[in-house]
């Protein structure tokens, strides 16, 4: 079972590149089954975090108060 995703402090690109590293590892020639299981768990956690990011993260607008005519 996948645990509910916690709020992540990493940005999406960081999560994405970690996931891609795992994918590359899986695509490599010699897999170690024990490591594969551990990597799979890692990937599942990353995927949950990424899904959480995509579904729940909002954009924030901050209006600049400076004047620009100088």
């Amino acid at each position: 079972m996948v645990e509910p995703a916690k709020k992540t402090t990493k940005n999406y690109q960081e999560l994405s590149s970690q996931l891609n590293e795992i994918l590359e590892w899986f695509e490599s020639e010699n897999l170690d089954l024990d490591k594969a299981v551990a990597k799979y768990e890692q990937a599942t956690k990353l995927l949950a975090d990424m899904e959480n990011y995509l579904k729940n993260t909002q954009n924030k607008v901050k209006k600049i108060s400076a004047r620009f005519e100088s």
Partner: protein
Amino acid sequence: MQEIIYSPTDFVAVVNQTLEYAYPRVIIEGELANFRISKNRWVYFDLKDENANVSFFGTIYQLPGPLEDGLMVRSVGTPRLHPRFGFSVNLESLVPVGEGALKKASDLLYKKLDKEGLFDPKRKRPLPIAPRKIGLITAAKSAAYSDFVKILNERWGGVEILFADVYVQGDKAPLQLAGAIEYFNQSEQPEVLVITRGGGGAEDLAAFNDERVVRAVAASRAPTLVAIGHEVDISLAELAADVRASTPSNAAQILVPDRHHELSLLTQKQQGIQKFLEQEFTRQDQQLKDSRSRVQGSLEQLFSGEIERLTNYRRLVSLFDPKAALRRGYAIVVKGQTYIRSVKQVKNKDRLSVRLSDGTIQAEVIKASNNG
């Protein structure tokens, strides 16, 4: 009534006071004539029509770009009587007027900046994928602002939008646009600068063909994405930008990935990893089966070898069985308790027991002689 007699200085002061009161700011539209730049800084020109010429004085920083005589322009300024050089309007801002003039001014600026390499494709930088901090420069109440933010929110999350509310058309637009670009580069350092406005006529979009804006876009340390919603001529600011979008919505589409698409990619990736893992399990299982059958094979080989050796031993052992020899017709001769192996062990009259396979013969030695 007594007439006032002025000194020239006083008269100039009084006229200026009157002008300041009556015409603090004038807008004059006319044909540009006698345009010249002195010491690469001071600008002199006249605006004329069929009957009159009005002199203007200003600096190059107030110009939208290179100009030439004959262009129709609208100038904003303050009328002044100079103590030595006479009447002129101190220039505040100037814009070409009418499509022809705007096109001509834009062409002049294009030539100038193109020579400097500002539009060179080699200068273009890629935008970061899914930036977390962006600078947005547009007008707050514009459709461009709401379209951009709406599409951005629909597509992606986690973006901090630092928003500079500026005029995107009119006299103040060029300085505000250029100032906002400069502000972001100095103070906030966003990952991307988005400069956008909706479509409009050539005059509405004139700020995006202003030299100050185009140079600010080209000089921006943060990569720039410029989106002006119009179909026809591309503005020079767009040409100078790292990336151009056709509309504010299109800018949001270019800037961030689509979360729904990304979610389906994630599902694919998840399935891919699962498949890899399953394949690995199957492979390992097969290896296990192979190993088991190899061990079994080796054991079976070992056993059958041993069985064969045992059979041979058994055959060998049976050859030494005396009973087998007796069955084949051999006999064992015993004298008393001694097995007789040589004729030398017996003499005549010795009593011997001759054991055969089925019984014993008691015998007496008549004669013992050597073979041959």
